[in-house]
């Protein structure tokens, strides 16, 4: 009896011990988290076997891997590629796997941008790239303009030069806007990424509010009222008199300042952050506007539910500052009123905001497919025309965009049959691309956060400054100094 009791006890101890071991593994502060990616490695040889017989299809050579892993931060890339890449036969209902006509599968690995999740996962995968099994390797990934420099850096070498894929940027991508090619190149001028969109910002306003306040909703007339910041302020005053807000919040105007800075946040090779005068102008102007009541007080930042609510028909917000993608991905889903209630005109200050770049990962086992996808989405004028028509995107093809401005086929139903391309093109022609650094994303996010508290009246100006310094050094430990203008 005693023995039995003992054995029962010991068995329990073993089970409990095993479980306890599992539980503890999560709480270890510094555990790597790399283990999960190793697991599928064992499947690789079996997955390779049918590859030899299954190669019945077109473009790519048959000695390529059977899985193309595409990392992205939202659905946008998948819908765009699906729209233009003819080899895709079908996509699973949950949107995670697409099958090509040669049997190759595209695995869409989507992690949200917020809180750096996307880059964390991508970095982890890229750092394991060399050891990963062929079908687990990252083949293609999306990078936003805010952090593209991090990946196109020649020393890091995670992004394949386009020329290595067999794409000649000078001839194959000749129709792209020059600045999109510049920002996608490393310090030596080698282009390592390619995009299908250029992102000149415009002002998108509510037609009904415009009629109510100014008696007209004609984009040309409204454009005069939003020509520069001084005029915009008088306009805001008029809007306020009728109970409307010019913009939803100070975060909306940030990009017009922040993307027109004179020097990069951090010079290459330096560890000093230089805060541009433009940023501080944004703070003072925003405080002015805030105190004057030109912003919707319920909205305290972008990408929040309050912000999205302010895009709906019940809102009193007159206008948003957005490039083309913002209209399609943010405004269309959040607008609940009649179609055609918005229109586009020139922003007080031209600026470029964002852009999703396609990057071929070094070590990809599907270079042929990757090349096809990049070319289909970013270097094919028919496809770029299609994307522009379907999603009202300002696509990265100069000739197509020039033609679009005077072609009624490009009118947008959401914008009340307005053709916005003239305004996009005007904005683009006067953009001076802000110099990039690999610290842009953290700087932009944290400075808005720190000064958000100040603008809301929570803390004083100097506390906001020191809060930014604390936060930025936490994010980037190698930063040694912050210089204010």
């Amino acid at each position: 009896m005693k023995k039995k009791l003992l054995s029962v006890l010991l068995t329990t101890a073993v089970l409990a011990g095993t479980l306890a071991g599992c539980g503890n593994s999560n709480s270890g502060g510094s555990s790597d988290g790399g283990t999960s990616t190793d697991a599928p490695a064992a499947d690789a040889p079996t997955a390779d076997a049918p590859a030899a017989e299954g190669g019945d299809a077109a473009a790519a050579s048959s000695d390529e891997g059977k899985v193309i892993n595409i990392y992205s931060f939202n659905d946008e890339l998948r819908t765009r590629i699906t729209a233009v890449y003819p080899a895709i036969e079908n996509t699973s209902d949950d949107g995670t796997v697409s099958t090509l006509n040669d049997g190759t599968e595209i695995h869409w690995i989507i992690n949200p941008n917020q809180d750096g999740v996307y880059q964390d996962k991508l970095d982890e995968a890229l750092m394991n790239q060399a050891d990963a099994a062929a079908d687990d390797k990252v083949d293609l990934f999306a990078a936003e303009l805010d952090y593209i420099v991090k990946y196109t850096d020649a020393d890091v070498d995670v992004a394949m030069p386009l020329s290595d894929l067999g794409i000649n940027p000078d001839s194959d991508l000749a129709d792209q806007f020059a600045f999109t090619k510049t920002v996608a190149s490393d310090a030596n001028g080698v282009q390592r990424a390619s995009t299908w969109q250029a992102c000149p910002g415009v002002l998108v306003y509510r037609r009904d509010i415009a009629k109510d306040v100014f008696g007209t909703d004609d984009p040309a007339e409204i454009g005069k009222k939003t020509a520069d910041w001084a005029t915009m302020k008088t306009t805001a005053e008029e809007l306020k008199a009728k109970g409307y807000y010019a913009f939803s919040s100070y975060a909306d105007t940030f990009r017009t300042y922040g993307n027109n800075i004179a020097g990069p946040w951090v010079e290459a090779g330096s560890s000093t952050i230089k805060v541009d005068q433009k940023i501080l102008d944004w703070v003072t102007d925003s405080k002015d506007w805030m105190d004057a009541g030109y912003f919707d007080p319920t909205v305290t930042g972008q990408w929040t539910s309050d912000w999205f609510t302010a895009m709906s028909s019940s809102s009193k917000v007159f206008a948003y500052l957005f490039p083309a993608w913002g209209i399609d991905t943010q405004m269309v889903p959040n607008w609940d009123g009649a179609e055609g209630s918005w229109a586009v005109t020139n922003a007080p200050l031209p600026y470029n905001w964002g852009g999703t770049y396609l990057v071929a990962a070094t070590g990809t086992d599907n270079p042929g497919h990757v090349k096809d996808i990049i070319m289909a989405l970013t270097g094919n004028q028919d496809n770029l025309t299609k994307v522009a028509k379907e999603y009202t995107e300002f696509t990265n093809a100069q000739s197509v965009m020039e033609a679009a401005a005077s072609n009624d086929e490009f009118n947008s139903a959401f914008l009340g049959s307005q053709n916005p391309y003239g305004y996009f093109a005007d904005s683009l022609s006067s953009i001076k691309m802000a110099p990039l650094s690999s610290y842009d994303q953290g700087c932009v996010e944290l400075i808005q956060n720190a000064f958000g508290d100040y603008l809301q009246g929570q803390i004083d100006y100097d506390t906001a400054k020191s809060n930014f310094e604390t936060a930025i050094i936490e994010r980037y430990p190698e930063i040694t100094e912050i210089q204010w203008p």
Partner: protein
Amino acid sequence: MQKKRKLVNYAKWGYIFILPFFASFLIFSLIPLVDTIRYSFYEYFRSGIKEIGPNFIGMANYASLIESDMLKYAGNTLILWLIGFIPQIVIALTLASWFVDVRMKIRCQQFFKVVIYLPNLIMASAFAMLFFTLFSKSGPVNSILMSLGVISEVIDFMRTALGVRSLVGTMNFLMWFGNTTIMLMAAIMGISPDIFEASEIDGCNSMQRFFRITLPLIRPILAYTLITSIIGGLQMFDVPQILTNGQGNPDRTSMTLIMFLNSHLRSKNYGMAGALSVYLFIVSGILCFIVYKITNDNDPDGSKAAAKAKKKRGGR
């Protein structure tokens, strides 16, 4: 002789049975733990996707943590924990003694027990998201208060230190008071009914019964609650993280220690994060030791001194 050999055999099986625990502990807990401590003496982080280090820098991480706002975050953590813990322990003790009191004859006890435990079943992050939506500027709480005429202007809960802290405290209270109640009920039910009967015959009123009998006799469970709550409080992370989007708004007044640690891990700064973990380890070690000492203080004549100590702790 033969008997002895048999005993040795059994001992061998014993070790074999506990081997899996020690093996998994070694791999999943001890090695990461030692690594954490080791890296705390190194400069080791990632810049972009370039790895910097590990370079040995001695105590520099510890020094720069002391210079940073770590103590402020420790204070935040303590405040957030207290806001949640005080109502939690008071309500839990009251409910527990009501539920087990035969004379009160509470109906549907099982139902109430389930209901008060329910918040604990919701994932903390989901709970925080829910509160975030409820208390946002255009959220239902503000609109209800407005339409009732209680307030004339919307309250921005997320932009005041008081607002965020009380929300975090409320959430922690709601999530954990059911759990504590059930544990304390078990403890009170473990007290022999004879003692309660005897006290009643001696003319004890319910207050006396609670402070002189119930409290001293559930001391071990109370101590356990306190220790787990302190450790849980030190590790407070998910609720404030989700509620403030990882920023500890406003003005970093709701930034807890683990959120601070997490923001170091954004840059994979294993050195700094390791040093912070070591500090946390030391602090929780000291706290546990103090509580252990207090609760194991052998009180020769039993209840009185213990009851007093308990009373103090209960009211803290």
